[in-house]
């Protein structure tokens, strides 16, 4: 099953060609109706919220790391490094995401600077992952096209669990970095990174490799784990919230359906989680209108919620649905969580070859 599953979700396998043949690649996705002027208003950029949130994010990291260093000879340093790790290893994910879209700030260089810092923290090459995420938005949960499907059918359960502490993603990221240092891409990256962009990937990998070499050398020379605890290490020990949030986005929902209302979750979260996750809990809204800055997503949600399946009231509520769904898909790959649209919502867009999320095989058995 493992090999079949990987082949099915491969970007260079038969399902990729089948998705193109079925009209699922670069398809016309459903969008809720929003008055044009209101939409333009919601898309407007400003620097204020992202400057505030970035200053808070980086400022907290500096303070927490400083206190942790001062307390490094006692166990009291642990909670400070633990919190630092979450800001480094988890909150970097949504900063990578928002600044990658170029919507967090109005000022372009600010987006780019934070994007590069966050990419390093989350260990994703800024160029390759920009293209990967572009594809994810074009072909969300289209099997064989979307490179960012976390929970396949059936899910790679051991991988999902190990990744809460980065035990798969981080070694893969290191392997890719070494590949890039040598001037090569993986086969999947070669599918979505254009030739003209590849030198940027190789240059970044060489810089990052040098940084990690200095960190490791510092740890060896000083005989202390501290350099690794501060740089690189948090991608492992602080990564768990990245997955707590990330799995809520699409796990267990419909595949091969060109309607984000059916394959994406919006989850209500408290203010701390919304800060750490940069409002990405409004995920249906983000996918439907990716140009709306993160700080305007709550307003967009209010604008279109009558056209969406109900938002999940909490992370816990989302997990109560997604965990049983993913476990059931281990045995029944045709199972999916069918999201019911509210009365009055416009029906989902349905070209003849597109299903409602059941992930019927595109290739006849």
């Amino acid at each position, binding site marked *: 099953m493992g090999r079949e599953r990987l082949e099915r979700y491969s970007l260079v396998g038969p399902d990729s060609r089948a998705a193109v043949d079925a009209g699922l690649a*670069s398809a016309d996705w459903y969008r809720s109706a929003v008055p044009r002027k209101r*939409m*333009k208003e919601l*898309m*407007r*950029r400003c620097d204020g919220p992202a400057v505030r949130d970035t200053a808070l994010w980086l400022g907290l990291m500096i303070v927490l790391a400083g206190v942790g260093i001062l307390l490094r000879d006692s166990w009291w340093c642990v909670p400070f490094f633990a919190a630092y790790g979450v800001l480094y290893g988890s909150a970097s994910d949504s900063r990578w995401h928002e600044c990658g*879209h*170029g*919507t967090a700030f*109005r000022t372009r260089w600010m987006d780019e600077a934070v994007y590069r810092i966050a990419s390093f923290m989350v260990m994703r090459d800024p*160029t390759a992952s*920009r*293209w990967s995420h*572009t594809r994810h*938005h*074009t072909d969300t949960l289209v099997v064989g096209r979307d490179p960012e499907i976390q929970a396949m059918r059936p899910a790679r359960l051991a991988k999902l669990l190990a990744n809460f502490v980065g035990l798969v993603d981080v070694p893969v990221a290191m392997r890719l970095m070494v590949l890039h240092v040598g001037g090569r891409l993986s086969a999947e990256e070669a599918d979505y990174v*254009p030739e*003209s*962009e590849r030198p940027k990937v190789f240059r970044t990998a060489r810089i990052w490799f040098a940084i990690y070499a200095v960190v490791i050398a510092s740890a060896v020379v000083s005989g202390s784990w501290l350099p690794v605890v501060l740089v690189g290490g948090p991608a492992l020990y602080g990564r768990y919230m990245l997955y707590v949030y990330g799995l809520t986005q699409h796990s267990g929902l419909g595949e091969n359906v060109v309607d984000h209302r059916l394959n994406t979750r919006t989850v209500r979260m408290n203010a701390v989680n919304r800060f750490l996750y940069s409002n990405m809990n409004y995920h249906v809204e983000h996918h439907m*209108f*990716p*140009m709306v800055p993160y700080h305007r997503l709550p307003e967009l949600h209010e604008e279109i919620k009558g056209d969406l399946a109900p938002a999940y009231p909490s992370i816990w509520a989302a997990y109560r649905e997604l965990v049983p769904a993913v476990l059931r898909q281990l045995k029944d790959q045709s199972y999916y969580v069918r999201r019911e649209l509210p009365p009055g919502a416009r029906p989902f867009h349905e070209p003849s070859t597109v299903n409602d999320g059941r992930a019927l095989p595109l290739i006849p058995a």
Partner: protein
Amino acid sequence: MPQWIPACATDDVDPEDVIPFEHAGESYAVYRSPDDVYYATAGHCSHERELLCDGLVMGGVIECPKHNGRFDYTSGKAMGAPVLVDLRTYPTKVEGGTVYIELA
């Protein structure tokens, strides 16, 4: 043979905004800069054919609504990933409150 085609009234498009224009089965985008100069480009993003009229105009730049790809709408120049191919641009003129674009 190039010809000037009436695209819209000058008031149809707000300053720093874009509207769509269809002619002979092709889509175009008509822009108005903050200082009331009108520009026209191809209507679809060169990356994945998304309609640019749904995008955001900001400081001489049109941003595609799907992947945030950016173009200088005065020159059509692509401004970085994920758009790598420039937009075609068209000459414009204003006469009697109407914006014309010159199409081949």
